[in-house]
């Protein structure tokens, strides 16, 4: 057999491609459920770590069920039903205008305190960045933050993932005292006040990406969170009145 004939070469290439394609698609399909589960558990870990609960991958599901008491999807400042918040893909939602997004919100109960966890997604220098920010009951003070990235430069932009950066966020305020939304400014050093944090030297574009991401993603939530705040303040007021009545 002449292995250098044209017809043989074509047949060989065709058979090879079919065999390889079949083999790889079989492997990819059979491993998909395990890979998806890993991604799901990692998402749970990230959500929990924004309220300072660090768990291993194995414990993630149990802890998630324990701490996350409610998941809601917000569209144009109203809760929508029929959509599972956990399954909402932020990458698709951030492409829409803030008020048209299906924005997921996770409500956590840790040691009797309520926290609101907001998923974020935006652009870094080289690719997408994302994270979770948890707000305290007053829906303004940041309780915890966690960020991650796809392909930022190690040692520079990739540092948004590190504790040295995320630890700057707790205690900062999202809203002004009068209730208007300000967000967090990432500064080139000399950050001061309750709306500013220091950026990463050498990672300016990624740092600014974080700032843009926060202000862009928060837009879908601010109005809803304010209604939550007034509602809970109202119940507190009612409770107080009830106590006085007694």
């Amino acid at each position: 057999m002449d292995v250098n004939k044209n017809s043989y070469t074509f047949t060989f290439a065709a058979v090879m491609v079919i065999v390889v394609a079949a083999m790889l698609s079989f492997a990819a399909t059979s491993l998909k459920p395990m890979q998806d589960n890993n991604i799901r558990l990692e998402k749970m870990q990230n959500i929990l770590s924004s309220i300072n609960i660090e768990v291993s991958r194995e414990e993630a599901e149990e802890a998630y069920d324990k701490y996350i008491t409610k998941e809601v999807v917000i569209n144009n400042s109203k809760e929508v039903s029929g959509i599972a918040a956990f399954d909402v893909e932020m990458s698709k939602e951030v492409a829409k205008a803030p008020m048209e997004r299906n924005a997921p919100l996770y409500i956590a109960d840790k040691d009797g305190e309520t926290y609101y966890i907001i998923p974020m997604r935006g652009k870094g220098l080289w690719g997408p960045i994302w994270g979770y920010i948890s707000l305290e009951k007053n829906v303004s003070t940041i309780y915890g933050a966690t960020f991650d990235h796809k392909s930022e430069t190690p040692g520079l932009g990739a540092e948004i993932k590190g504790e040295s950066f995320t630890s700057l966020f707790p205690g900062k305020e999202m809203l002004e005292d009068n209730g208007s939304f300000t967000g967090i400014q990432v500064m080139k050093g000399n950050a001061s006040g309750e709306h500013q944090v220091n950026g990463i030297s050498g990672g300016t574009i990624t740092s600014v990406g974080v700032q843009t991401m926060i202000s862009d993603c928060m837009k879908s939530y601010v109005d809803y969170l304010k209604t939550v705040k007034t509602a809970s303040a109202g119940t507190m007021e009612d409770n107080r009145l009830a106590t006085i009545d007694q």
Partner: protein
Amino acid sequence: MAEVQEVKKERESLFSKKNRKLITDPLNDSNPITVQVLGICSALAITVKLYPALVMSLSVLFVLSAGNVVISLMRNLIPNRIRIIVQLVVVASLVILVDQVLKAYVYDVSKELSVFVGLIITNCIIMGRFEAFALGNTPWKSFLDGLGNGFGYAWILLTVAFFRELLGSGQLFGFQIVPESWYLSEGGFYSNNGLMLLPPMALITVGIIIWVQRSRNTELIEEN
């Protein structure tokens, strides 16, 4: 005609001296990293810690030995004109397979290795062995050659990772080796060498290994 001659040839034992040399040579005399200076990029990028270096070494070991066997089995069927493409397809499919398995079973490590598993495809060691060895030798010999070169790659990676993790973060495989009480923050005298965590130190460590190797094995020193 050729087949008749092959039968007459004396059967070589599985671990003859020649076959054993296929494994031992790449460990030292023809080491893919330190002597042939191939596959350096991954040695620099993923040797900050021992665990990813180990996973990377095992991946390369698998891709290299399995690919060598596959290419060797097909060596009389591959049309000469498309042999490089065939080699690329074989290495690419094996690498994709490894990547999928890592994502399913050791997700954290696969995230840490990120693009470097994919980059095994472009690792010159692998295409080099396919082209230079597997295309002209029997499957068993090619398998041994793959193992030898894989181990040659692995021990350099693990050695570099050992020193980088120990001096850079005081740990081995994530376990604290340097006692906590030695650290400056605990009132001691020791501090981790942050430079060890950066890629340039991997290059310098590989350089030191090459230096040590050549001073012990003078045959490797080139004449100027």
